[in-house]
């Protein structure tokens, strides 16, 4: 029994590294949409130029050798420069690309909320509500609703 177990263990020990070496870490479709064809300036999965075919062959070969997606990308960047990647890296100058839209929307949100709060404070500080105000407000609300519901 123990011998059998040991045997299984030994076989596994031999097989596991083999399996992991040959096990592709990513799919072609997945990585192709993240790479560019440098001569055609379109995405790799959309390109059929000779250069694109060579890059595909390279990626496929390295994939079957068990390289990770990152290793393949690094190797391609070393040959073609960063423009082979379909999105700039989130570091260096590439970080600017990612941060700017977030900063715009985040900043816009902060400004909008701040303005509304400032307005509200001014309104509340300005005056107490009289019955006439309340009646007026009710009329405004009703008018706004009537815009919505023309039945």
């Amino acid at each position: 029994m123990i011998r059998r177990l040991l045997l299984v263990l030994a076989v596994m020990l031999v097989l596991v590294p083999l399996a992991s070496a040959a096990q592709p870490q990513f799919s072609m479709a997945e990585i192709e949409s993240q790479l560019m064809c440098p001569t055609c300036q379109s995405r790799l999965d959309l390109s059929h130029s000779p250069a694109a075919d060579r890059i595909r062959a390279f990626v496929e070969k390295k994939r079957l050798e068990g390289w990770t997606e990152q290793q393949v990308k690094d190797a391609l960047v070393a040959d073609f420069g960063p423009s082979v990647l379909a999105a700039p890296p989130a570091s260096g100058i590439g970080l600017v690309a990612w941060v700017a839209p977030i900063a715009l929307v985040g900043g816009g949100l902060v400004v909008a909320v701040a303005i509304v709060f400032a307005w509200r404070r001014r309104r509340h500080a300005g005056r107490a509500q009289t019955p006439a105000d309340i009646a007026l407000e009710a009329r405004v609300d009703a008018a706004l609703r009537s815009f919505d519901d023309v039945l």
Partner: protein
Amino acid sequence: MALIGQGALILALLLAIYAAFAGLFAGLGRDRRFMTSARNALWAIFALVVIADAIFLYAIFTHDFSFTVVADTTSRSLPIGYMFTAWWGSQAGSLLLWVTILAGFSLLALRATHRALGELQPWLIMILALIGAFFLVLLVVPASPFVTQLAPVDGVGLNPSLQNPYMAIHPPALYLGYVGLAIPFALAMAAMIAGRTDARWLVASRRWTLAAWGFLGIGMLLGSHWAYTEVGWGGFWAWDPVENAALMPWLVATAFLHSVMVQERKGMLKVWNICLISGAFALSIFGTFLTRSGILSSIHAFVSTNIGWYFVVAFVAIIGGSFVLILWRLPLLKADQRIESLVSREATFLFNNLLLVGIAFAVLWGVIFPLVTEAFGSVRETVSTPFYEFFVIVFGLPLLLLMGLGPLIAWRRASLKQLQRSFLYPLAAGLVAGGVMIGFGLGSSWPGVAAGSVCAFVTVTVLSEFVRGAAARRSIHGENWLLALSRLIGRNRRRYGGYIVHLGVILFVIGAVGSSAYETQAEGLLKPGDSLKVGSNVLTFEGVERTRGPNFVARAAVLDVTSDGSNLGTLKPAKRSYLREQTTSNEVAIRTTLTGGDLFIILDGIRGDGAVKIKAFYKPVVALLWIAGFFFVGGVLLCVWPDQREARRILRRYAEEPLPGEA
């Protein structure tokens, strides 16, 4: 002939410059006769441009290859149907189409604003004439369609990728959109110059914006369908600059269409609305610039014209000009009312605008980022799919959520009690949908589950709007459900048309997210007799079939498709080699199943020994993308269709409130 055409364009240019000045003088109140004269000039421009069109088309149809442009884009063997496509197949021809549409739209805009906005007309003419003059300069100087040469025996022919029915409709639809945005822009500028900054220009421009926005949307959908079935890599949107060029103005126009409602009702966001419409038009010029100047593909731009310069000047002039006008009229653009609560309809519109503009900015930033890095002396970075998809998900999901929240939240400020009541069912629907998706094993993709629950939430809100409205009519007027529903929609076209578009958006999102987040894919090298399993389908490779077309040879992999034991027939993905153009193209094989999913097969390569590389996808619910298109078109038509009752209502409202200048 060419001389007459060129002459017509030069004359049109001179008249456009004249019309701009005549509009200016009329606006300054010098002489009313200038107004008549400027209007006549616009008519004359239209007539001259039509003459130029006629000569150009005549040259195309009679194979007059002494016209350089005709020789470069057509040939004797070109099918008649694609002769029109050749019109916009060249730079000069597409600019000619631009000017033609603009001249026609200008006249329509003049008619439409005749009654309610007479005092804006001189300025409207001035702005439109200036825009027209810009494009006429392009047509006269750097990109004339009437350049002649010694006629060759036959033309070069039309680019094969343009010889496609989609390419015959898709560019004109986009152009109608791009040019259509010129009208609301001109109205906004005219309103500011004239000092009439009340909501009148906005109401008049709404229909124009909607139509232009609708054309852009249809153009993009057609382009997507073309990309999906013809380009054939398994997706429908590649985020290339040409696509982004149409998406940016569309997004900003979407923001405008929403924020317009806030200004109409509450007199807020006046500056913002002018910024939006200027931005949308500037981006449509920018889009034309991107697709026409070749700045993003400089390596391939063998034919380099200096047309880019003109566009940079125009782009900066539009933004700078509207900015200066806004600064000048800032005192007139004060908000009548203020936002009272962050939980109010107007606040949801505000957030909606922020997110839409955020996505538009992300796209713009992505398009120009390579140029920016290059300008700073760094290597040209590439920005493509992963970048855009990230922002579409991050900004798009909250946007989708707002689409469901909006109708539930009252104007001014919402009370907690009201919120509880209206949120209960939609929220429950969203949670149930999310739970069901996870239960069915769809939890693998968090954007998928999030989009699914948000879509359920929005669908229930939107549908309950229809049900509530119809129920109210039923109880008030005693109509049956069908009549109540149709009257409800018919009498509030704008609102319910908008909801129908929203339903279209939901379908589109489900189609887009479902087909990408839950697709199954398989790839393999198949020898005859081998099979490949993708989802529940098994593809068995029978052999390679060779066929000849008129100008290509095709090699197809014959694949037998079975699903759970039942035979679904054969599919033949192929590779075409075009002999003369020396290019190959992939002809994908697509089989749509009853549940709206597609089996999508690409032939990636054929080896010498007869083995083939096959890439296969199963894309669920992808058909919803195209169904969404019908909702979109239906909703837009419902909103755009002239509505006498609404027109009367608006006129009545104007009669009640005095103009700001007279108050």
